[in-house]
């Protein structure tokens, strides 16, 4: 009985640690994305798109967005306002996989893990395609 209790407690503690299976992805998100997209992925009104409801969740194209960044612009008749997301070219394939899996796991409804091969393919497609 006593042992059962100890094992139970141990399991709870361990599962607490693995609350986020993508620890590196979480750290990368906090360091590079959170200032703009917020901790809860909600973005900032029409200025910064949310990630928690993004159409790119689960889509390999997200890799290319992260690699290339975005330069969008809002206009009115007098001036313009750049909506900019920096390009994250220096992330390794493993880092990219952990980051994308962290984001998808957090907000995608039917989360399915991307493999290193998926990410590699997405990166090379991104680097060769010209759009």
């Amino acid at each position: 009985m006593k042992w059962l209790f100890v094992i139970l407690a141990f399991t709870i503690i361990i599962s607490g640690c693995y609350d986020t299976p993508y620890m590196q992805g979480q750290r990368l998100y906090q360091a590079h994305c959170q200032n703009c997209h917020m901790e809860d992925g909600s973005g900032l009104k029409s200025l910064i798109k949310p990630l928690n409801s993004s159409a790119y969740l689960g889509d390999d194209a997200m890799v290319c967005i992260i690699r290339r960044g975005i330069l969008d612009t809002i206009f009115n008749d007098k001036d313009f306002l750049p909506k900019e997301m920096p390009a994250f070219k220096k992330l390794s394939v493993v880092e990219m996989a952990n980051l994308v899996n962290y984001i998808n796991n957090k907000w995608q409804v039917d989360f399915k893990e991307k493999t290193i091969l998926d990410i590699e393919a997405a990166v090379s497609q991104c680097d060769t395609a010209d759009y």
Partner: protein
Amino acid sequence: MKNIVSGFLLIMTITLITACNQQPKELPYLGNMAMVDGQEVHHTVGTIHHYNQDSILMTNADFKDVIYVADFFFTSCPSICPRVTKEMHKIYEAVKDNPMVRLVSFTIDPVRDTPERLKLYADNLGVDHNKWYFLTGDKEGTFELADTYFVTAYEDEEVPGGFDHSGKIILVDKTGHIRSYSEGTEPQSTPKIIEDIKILSDSYK
């Protein structure tokens, strides 16, 4: 025995009720006292001479009948600004029905942040231009002004975006004295400043 218990309950109840009825304590005056014309006065914010997102000139006189929270930011900021703006927006939502309260965001990048650009920014945040002012003015003057709000802001080519600054949100009363602040980068400090805005606003009733 029964009497003692009910007596005890009575005292407890009275204590609880009086505790609830206690007047909220007055907010402190932050900063050092200064001597003005031989009189000691509380620290006061500096000179506002800035244009808002509708290109209207605003000065300190425009703030003498309102209380406001202020922050310093710039629209092309790749670092902490969006997070601070997010907290400012939470405050906006919480106080927008209180006619005494305003929000003020000073840009520290006035060369790029023209009134027109600030208008685009405010419109895309979806906020009331008469409630939340986005102000642009002389660059050096704004850095000096930031100092009087206890915010550090300066140009630095080494940091992302070209400007370094802290993300404080400052609460200012009708006479230009600083009464509270929160850290715009720490969402858990936002409820406290919303509470303080209410205390300050109630103190004018």
